[in-house]
């Protein structure tokens, strides 16, 4: 595994002028220490550490250089880069809400800040859920998620359906990337951690407010997709499902918590149309092999030829659009993809 790569060098690369305060030194030391922890624990600690550093940096820098920084920052889409730069400083004309800079409440059209939505990296998928679950797909109210596609008072005769599902969408990077790539396709992110879901919600609202006519086709829902996929989607409803950088769950005891397994693939196959594509990617070799072997063994999925994968514009987004993917790329880590197609059962 690519465990020892990346982190120490990232610590060193941070601007040394900021490292003068004792607090800063402590942070650096912590990050260095984190480099020697097992990967899945480290991810939480290290990323929050650097995120805090980025936040403090952005507070100190003047608005103009923030624009430049935001444009360079790989973790943001171009629309968001503008949003960040305009959020506090020069764009007072837009909303007049520039005053509530540090508050958790976000004004319209303003990107939420991740530091207010930090959450533990793991969540127990086995526990009884306490959040509301639709009893059946008929109860999913799409007009709340996609108001532009479901104007009030109109019959839902030819109502569009959700076609893409990003399972474990995290901070929503892929959704934002896909939204402009498939502007007429409804897609939903599913995330178990409530704070993270809140962040994605705010992020989408901010993007919609600042880019009228765009980002109306993405939404997010807090749910346990390992238990409740059939409560959200009908048979053969989805054409694409995404499982990006899922929790690796190294211990054998915890393998049943992995989001890809033979049994769960049955349910994914049920909600996917024949010809639909399932995308998985991870930076953990062991998990990559696990996901690939599950998909290979499953009679309802077949591997997609290499040329076809190369031609698919979505594949590039897997490693570039998500926060987790960018982190891996930054650290020079390896990724392992498994991209399969849903097929109908071959009766011999």
């Amino acid at each position, binding site marked *: 595994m690519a465990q020892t790569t990346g982190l120490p060098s990232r610590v060193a690369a941070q601007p040394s002028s900021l490292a003068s305060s004792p607090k800063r030194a402590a942070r650096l030391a912590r990050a260095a220490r984190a480099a020697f922890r097992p990967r899945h624990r480290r991810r939480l600690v290290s990323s929050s550490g650097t995120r805090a550093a980025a936040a403090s940096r952005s507070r100190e820098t003047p608005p103009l250089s923030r624009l430049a920084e935001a444009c360079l920052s790989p973790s943001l889409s171009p629309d968001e880069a503008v949003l960040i730069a305009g959020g506090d400083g020069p764009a007072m004309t837009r909303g007049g809400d520039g005053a509530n800079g540090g508050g958790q409440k976000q004004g319209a059209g303003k990107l939420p800040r991740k530091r207010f939505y930090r959450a533990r990296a793991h969540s127990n998928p086995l526990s009884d859920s306490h959040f509301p679950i639709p009893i059946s797909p008929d109860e999913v109210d799409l007009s709340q998620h996609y108001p532009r596609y479901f104007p009030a008072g109109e019959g839902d005769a030819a109502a569009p359906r959700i076609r893409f599902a990003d399972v474990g969408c995290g901070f929503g990077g892929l959704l934002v990337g896909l939204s402009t790539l498939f502007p007429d396709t409804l897609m939903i992110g599913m995330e178990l951690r409530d704070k993270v879901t809140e962040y994605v919600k705010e992020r989408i609202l901010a993007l919609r407010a600042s880019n009228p006519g765009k980002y109306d086709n993405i939404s997010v829902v807090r749910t346990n997709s390992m238990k409740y996929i059939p409560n959200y989607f009908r048979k053969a409803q989805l054409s694409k499902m995404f499982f990006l950088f899922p929790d690796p769950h190294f211990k054998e005891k915890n393998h049943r918590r992995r989001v890809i397994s033979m049994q*769960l693939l049955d349910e994914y196959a049920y909600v996917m149309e024949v010809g639909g594509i399932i995308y998985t990617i991870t930076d953990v070799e062991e998990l990559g092999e696990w996901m690939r072997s599950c998909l290979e063994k499953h009679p309802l999925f077949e591997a997609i030829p290499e040329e076809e994968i190369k031609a698919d514009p979505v594949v590039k987004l897997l490693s570039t659009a998500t926060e987790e993917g960018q982190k891996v790329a930054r650290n020079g880590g390896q990724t392992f993809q498994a991209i399969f197609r849903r097929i109908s059962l071959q009766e011999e």
Partner: protein
Amino acid sequence: MEDAGIEEAEVSGGAEFAPALVAAHPLGSSVAVAVGPELRVFDLKAGSAVSLSDDSGGSSHSDAIRAISFSANGVLFASAGDDKLVKVWKTDSWCCIRTITSEKRASAVAISNDGTHLTFADKFGVVWLVTMEESVGGQKPTDNKPVSILGHYCSIITSMKFSPDGRYIATADRDFKIRITLFPERPLRGVHEIQSFCLGHTDFVSCIAFTCLSEGPSFLLSGGGDSTVRLWDYINGCLLDTCQVRDKVEELIETSETGDNNLAVTDICPTNDGSLVAVAIQSLNGVMLLACDLVTKKLSFLKVMTMEKSYIPTSLSSSFSADLLWTVMGASNMPNQATSQLFTRLKIIPNFKKDPLASSDHVPTVLEDSEVPHGEKLLLALQGSLDIGKQEEVLASVLAALKVSMHKMLVKKHYSEERREQRKRGRNDKKIKKRNICSSCDHRFVACT
């Protein structure tokens, strides 16, 4: 540490109780009652109790039996339970031909219609499959370990049945779901293609049963913790009708008794022609009958057949040939029990057909103990005692314990917001952080070293 105290108090509510179960042979030649680890069988043709024998070399049941089932043709019988054993019996000799050890406690068992496969479900939601080599003939699978064929994600499977045509296997769980899966010719390779989900219950699903018009299409009936019986077009996963039994029961029982509001449906049993459904409900002393019209696809309340006050059936069964509805009541271990014997109470409703039952308002509809076929012999064999009817307080405590036990096992846990916050504070990863604080300078270790 008060948190741990709360939890212990919740757990120590008593041992787990398993309800007594009854199963009638499809051709009416025998009837089986399971209570605790005991399996009692009565041969209705010979009119005598059956002594079970075991050729499989496995141990006998040592903990509560949770599921029993005859195969469709009545040749095989399966029992499974909390002792993680699944036993298969031949019904002609009542000899155990196979003992399978499960990894987890078994919660449901079914035999495929052609008798070639046995499936059992465990409390983690996984369904396992075993080939019955005797019936296959000739080719013995080399290693005959159970193979996992499908799974509900970490949810107790409460009931499992094969459809009448044998093409589908239906599984119900405590997460409100009923899953209909295509059962292929060679299921050892896995049972992956889901036909539909029947979603509509708003609490756990406790029982499912297939019903059909003669030679017509078949439908699925289900009952659950939300006090409803539902009729499904299971091929398409469509809910056809819902019958709320709560209102009817509350009319009958004084509200003081139903303060706990546990009116979960515990078992359902349709008649052969599909026109009638018998429903057992927690707290209802008797059996509720629903008229089931499979042409208009409607369920409607017909009547409640009340029985003596303390008799609340836990399990129902009927056979294809005789028009008898067998009902049984009992639990695996009795609270404050002096004797070691496990008692059950058995009652039989004759003429389990729509027409006589719908019209006969004054005719006694439950057989008295003296009217039971084979009389005392049968009662002694299946109940364990003759005068069990007199032990009212024992029966009452059994039922109270059963209710609590079922509720605990199947109902979703609801924790208050404060409770969840409190649990979060005591989380292990937070504890590690606390330990890292240096005692001498009150800084984190990282900062002071």
